[in-house]
């Protein structure tokens, strides 16, 4: 695989959230506003890129790899937990509002399946540069996916989209035009399941259409 493919596969083709359906818990819980989703994305980006780098550095050293192999999962978890603690302390110090609204989901990045999954499936058997590119692609794919869900939820549920701090887009005029109130249900837990289900179904439908078209094209050509 080329370097470009390694980077880009996380965006659409192997998107961790919409295709592999990993890391469900944070993507349901923190998508109440775009700001939370971006904050979560930054945390996952930092942890995933660095954990991929460190783990591939460990595993590409032959002597070290032999030593680590029988206990590799605990080693991965300790590496990831250390990085998560750094993120947690950083957010506590500099982004306190975000720290409060993400709450328990910052330490829970440790058990996010995407990170351990990439460590085991990719970083442990690839070169450091490729692993970093893979981490960047996967983290951006994840951030993009939770951003889509949070825009969907925040727009329907609150009528506005908070980008960062006081910077927000007010879209309530659309609801005024339609003569209705924003549907508060969408920012509540109920909305998380419903929006994720609908978006996932939409993406599957698009994928199915494409596959059909491709099949038809093959038939016409053959």
């Amino acid at each position: 695989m080329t370097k470009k493919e390694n980077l880009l596969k996380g965006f659409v083709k192997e998107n961790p959230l919409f295709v592999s359906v990993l890391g469900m818990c944070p993507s349901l819980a923190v998508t109440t506003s775009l700001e939370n989703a971006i904050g979560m994305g930054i945390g996952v980006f930092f942890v995933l890129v660095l954990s991929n780098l460190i783990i591939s550095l460990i595993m590409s050293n032959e002597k070290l790899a032999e030593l680590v192999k029988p206990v590799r999962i605990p080693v991965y978890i300790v590496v990831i937990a250390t990085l998560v603690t750094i993120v947690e302390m950083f957010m506590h110090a500099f982004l306190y509002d975000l720290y409060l609204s993400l709450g328990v989901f910052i330490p829970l990045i440790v058990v996010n399946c995407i990170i351990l999954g990439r460590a085991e499936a990719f970083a442990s058997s690839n070169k450091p540069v490729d692993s970093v590119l893979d981490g960047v692609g996967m983290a951006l794919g994840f951030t993009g996916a939770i951003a889509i869900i949070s825009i969907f939820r925040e727009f329907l549920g609150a009528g506005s989209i908070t980008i960062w701090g006081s910077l927000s887009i007010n879209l309530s005029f659309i609801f005024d035009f339609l003569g209705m109130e924003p549907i508060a249900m969408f920012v509540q837990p109920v909305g998380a399941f419903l929006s994720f289900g609908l978006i996932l179904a939409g993406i599957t439908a698009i994928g199915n259409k494409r596959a059909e078209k491709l099949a038809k094209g093959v038939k016409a050509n053959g």
Partner: protein
Amino acid sequence: MDKIIALAFTAFIAENILLSQFLGICPFLGVSKKRSSALGMGFAVLFVMLISSMVTWVLYKYVLETLSIEYMRTIVFIIVIASLVQMVETFIKKVSPGLYKALGIYLPLITTNCAVLGVAILNISKEHNFGEMVIYTTFIGLGFIFVMFIFSMLREKIDKAPVPKAFQGIPIALVVAAILAIIFSRFGGII
């Protein structure tokens, strides 16, 4: 007494771990296709959750706080949970092979179940004392089993229903979970 009942009720239904706190969604969607496996997973989680919450609570109060290294919380907790799961697995294998066979495949999966680490951290951040911690954790675990059980029965029915192609699998499961969440969130008004 009122306080304890309110705490138990909140943990069991109003703030249900799956439907309002979104912890442990992976097993919720992954192993809820059959009633028996949903129950097996549920009890394994309750068991590990209770033991690990007790151990991490004691460790936090008497080791991390006295040494004032609270920032080590995440690392210490995940190591404790991972080794506890290993120990519980070995213990059950030795003492009750029947139970081990029933839980077998679910036990190692629990390490990466965010519900276990999540509850351990919630118990610390909500500043529960030991008694409150035990009650809270038990009822969170029972709530997990309860919802898993209902959901697995629903999914057994869905399997036989004509679901649109795009909704098959996870999307329809999420929509059903949303309907369940509506029902559960209304119970919050009782307290």
